[in-house]
């Protein structure tokens, strides 16, 4: 894998973020049908997945690794409350550190190594040029608390859920690239509490079924799902805490700039049981793509248009698309029309020959 150089402007300021052709090709397009419907769309995270795909490994990293790490540092420096570990979650944080180091080193040996002799460990992150000796479970042996330490070297957001009384609780995490939600606000909430704002799904019983399913996840049986929304500019940190910086971007979209500025934002969510603490790791790996890049794939273009045209009003509102969706549709319709016109012209030319 090629890692792009660290780019401090990728996800804010100049928004220099750009996907390579390879990143576009492996982008997790989230719509299996022409109409988007709520479902408990969870499936086993069977490993290894298709080579090169985002589900080949337990934890996916890609060309944006260094830029996302830089973005995470920037967000944490401004707002340390993006990382939180309640006291009873300290063992889960160690569990998680061991999990990340083990999988990163196993799946990306060119980038990471993890040597272990009993509790004596050596971790090397070649991409960030870090080398750290420490004792597993000993807070004093690391420069930062365990979740803080490994979270700053990991691509994707992290929530560690405590399980008790047949429910899950948002009791630890590091969230620096949320799609409009806040760890500090959701801290300590139960599964249904933090899903409170989601429309329609409660009435459908989606959360009752999902919660039972998630509580039954066991060690060695990770699951995954895709979730999606849209974001103006490739902005990773669209959190309520920084709403003042990005909320008004939604008013800037026109049928002319939608292809460049509007991004489809897809989350690969993985749920993995931590072996010692029984905490549930909820990983959110976010992938961004501009509509222009997305529409280099004509099948995706056609389907995205159909999905957006049939999206229920409640969902348009919940996902924050209300203001600019008409411009997006206009842009997509124009693309579709030009594709159709081109096909017609070719057919006419063929017939003339």
């Amino acid at each position, binding site marked *: 894998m090629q890692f792009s150089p660290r780019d401090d402007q990728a996800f804010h300021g100049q928004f220099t973020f750009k996907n390579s052709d390879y990143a576009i090709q492996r982008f997790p397009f989230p719509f299996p049908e022409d109409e988007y419907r709520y479902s408990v769309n969870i499936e086993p995270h069977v490993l290894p997945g298709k080579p090169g795909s985002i589900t080949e490994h337990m934890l996916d990293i890609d060309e944006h690794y260094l830029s996302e790490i830089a973005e995470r540092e920037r967000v944490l420096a401004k707002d340390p409350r993006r990382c939180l570990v309640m006291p009873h979650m300290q063992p889960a944080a160690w569990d998680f550190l061991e999990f990340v180091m083990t999988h990163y080193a196993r799946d990306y040996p060119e980038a990471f190594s993890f040597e272990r002799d009993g509790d004596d460990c050596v971790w090397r992150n070649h991409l960030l040029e870090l080398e750290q000796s420490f004792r597993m479970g000993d807070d004093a042996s690391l420069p930062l608390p365990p979740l803080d330490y490994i979270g700053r070297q990991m691509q994707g957001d992290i929530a560690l859920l405590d399980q008790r009384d047949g429910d899950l609780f948002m009791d630890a995490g590091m969230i620096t690239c949320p799609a409009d939600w806040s760890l500090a606000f959701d801290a300590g909430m139960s599964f249904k509490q933090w899903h409170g704002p989601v429309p329609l799904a409660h009435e459908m019983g989606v959360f009752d079924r999902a919660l039972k399913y998630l509580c039954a996840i066991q060690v060695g049986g990770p699951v995954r799902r895709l979730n999606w929304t849209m974001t103006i500019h490739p902005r990773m940190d669209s959190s309520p805490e920084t709403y003042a910086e990005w909320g008004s971007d939604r008013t800037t979209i026109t049928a002319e700039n939608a292809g460049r500025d509007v991004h489809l934002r897809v989350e690969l969510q993985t749920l993995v049981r931590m072996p010692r*603490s029984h905490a549930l790791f909820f990983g959110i790996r976010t992938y961004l793509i501009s509509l222009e890049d997305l529409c280099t794939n004509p099948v995706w273009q056609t389907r995205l248009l159909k999905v957006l045209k049939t999206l229920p009003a409640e969902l348009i509102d919940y996902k924050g698309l209300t203001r600019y969706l008409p411009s997006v549709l206009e842009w997509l319709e124009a693309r579709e029309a030009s594709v159709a016109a081109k096909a017609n012209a070719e057919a006419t030319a063929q017939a003339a020959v």
Partner: protein
Amino acid sequence: MSRFMKARVAAVDQLSSSVRRLTLVPADEASPFTPFSPGSHVVLGIPGEGRVCRNAYSLISPPDDPSQYCIAVRRQPVSRGGSEAIHSRVKVGDELELSPPANLFLPHWQARHHLMLAGGIGITPFLSYLPELERRGASWELHLRSQDLDVARFPEAAPYLASGNITQHRLERPNLKALLARQPAGTHVYLCGPQAMIDAVKDAARELHWSLARIHHEVFAAPEPGTPFMAVARGSGVEVAVGAQESLLEALERSGVEVTSLCRGGVCGQCRVEMLEGEAEHRDAFLDEQERASQRCVMPCVSRARSQRLVLDL
């Protein structure tokens, strides 16, 4: 459970006239055991007459030591094959199928004090609690009521005997109400033992106006025998007679129908199957009232048929 591993029996110890302790080690170096969380169990496949009997057993060894897993098995007066085989046939060197650890009985880590009450072989899940409770510096006490099982016979309990936190009751029944009444606020209670014991503790808790959210229990829900019936797995085209002493799940497995399962005791929900015809006698603790009443799904690990035939979407 699909991912079974191979384990080798490294030691067999007789802890009482009716309880045996097995020490299991990985049979294949390529698939080592993992650490586990306190209260975890494994499903052990025990070859019996004509079929593999699969039973769930709590792990009693320290959770952070993946070099070996230990379990303790009581010889059941009416055995469905598993416990009998462990007591009469399983010997050092045998290889058995083993599921990865799963947990349906975790300590409540926000508790101010942990009170564990065990009846007989119900001591087993708590033996893996103790090392982690100590490591976290938690406040705890453990009571075992058993006439023939001595807690001191468990090597796993040895480091904690001197703490004074373990009380063994013999013939006398502990005064549950007095025991609960002297607990500090924020105590969580964990129960493992016969249903009568669980009921008695819950009654005492209610009398003291405790929230039942502070009482947690693991029932050793071995499938109860019942009337024989026919089961049809429509998708697989399999029809199987379910005997009085076996579970629907076991009968399906015996005839080669794959069913995902985990706790085999009606609580985890993994083996839930859609039901196309027939009426189930629900014995699980997983489905909600609506699901039971709908007669559209069933948990084959513990539930049986009220009708003569159950047709399943398998």
